[in-house]
């Protein structure tokens, strides 16, 4: 007799409204905790926390008002972090993704202090996430960062376990 197929777990989802600086920290720490529950290991969950933090910081800085949506997609177990906001679109994505730049180009090193950021946020998102999508909508924009359940591991990580 064949074993009963496992019921795929229902899609799980959490939303965090983002407006103030404190919302960034709430979203980041809660999302990290949830991601552990969704099956990410400690290190990967910490990376997801940083991604949420960077995206949410950007919402507070440029997006006016928005939300972070964390979703576990069954049955494969991918996790997405969606950052939606109603702010203006990113002028030049290519430039904005470059470390040390905002969407208008390189940031003057003299202005880094007091700017509240290094201009490396989107770069960090791209480094930690398995895939990043950017979409402009009728009102605002959405950045989606994907975390796949089994990421290709570095030999060092394999050695450690």
């Amino acid at each position: 007799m064949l074993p009963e197929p496992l019921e795929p777990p229902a899609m799980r989802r959490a939303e965090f409204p983002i407006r103030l600086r404190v919302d960034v920290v709430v979203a980041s720490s809660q999302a990290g905790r949830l991601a552990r529950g969704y099956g990410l290991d400690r290190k990967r969950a910490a990376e997801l926390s940083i991604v949420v933090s960077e995206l949410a910081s950007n919402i507070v800085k440029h997006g006016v008002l928005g939300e972070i949506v964390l979703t576990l997609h069954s049955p494969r177990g991918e996790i997405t972090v969606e950052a939606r906001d109603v702010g203006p679109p990113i002028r030049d994505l290519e430039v904005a993704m470059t470390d040390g730049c905002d969407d208008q180009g390189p940031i003057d090193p003299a202005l880094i202090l007091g700017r509240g950021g290094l201009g490396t946020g989107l770069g960090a998102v791209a480094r930690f996430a398995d895939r990043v999508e950017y979409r402009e909508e009728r009102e605002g924009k959405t950045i989606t960062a994907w975390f796949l359940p089994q990421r290709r591991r570095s030999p060092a990580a394999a050695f450690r376990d």
Partner: protein
Amino acid sequence: MDQTDSTHVKVTSQRLQSVIEALSYASVDEFDSCLELLQRSTEKDEFSELETAFVIFVSELGAAKAELNRALAQQEAINRELEAKLETIEMQQAAIRELSTPIIEVWAGVLCLPVVGVVDSQRSAEMTETLLETIVAKQARMAIVDITGIDVMDTKTADHFIKMARAVRLLGAECIVSGINPGIAQTLTHIGVDLTGVRTLRSLRDALQLYLRETEQLVVQQHATIARSKVPEV
């Protein structure tokens, strides 16, 4: 119906039954059905006065009961709201604890910056700013940045941390980074940052011990100078 007899009132059992039924409705909070039954009779006699009295009594009871239920529902809503607020406050307090990076003067001239939680590019920039300003304000000679509580850091953020340590040196103080975990150590060597001029120690304790050892020599020298200048009291 005979209404002349002053000691007896004759009532058809149907009317009596109807009043009993009405009151049983009232006993289970069906006030509308109760009132409807009580007001059905059109006769005007002594018994109808009793019915009228019941109507007043029951309608007041009904109103009081409705008022009570409204108040209870309102109270419940307030309680729920309060609970939600408390939950939010709890979450925010946890968040604030993680967000705030206190700078503690652990010893005269020694600042300690324990970093916990998530460090993103914005927070790392803010920390640098606060640390550099505090070093100048407190005329500190040493700053210990303890990152024991940090699991993961982006390469650029890690790079910025090392730059912060250099900036501290430029201000004439020494910067020690303590509690670097294996993951971050890999990140730092991976991006090939230049670590010259940045002292790293295993723990906050090691960093403090180092400072004490170094100042001890200074203190011994000072004592020697003082001893030469005056006779010590016994």
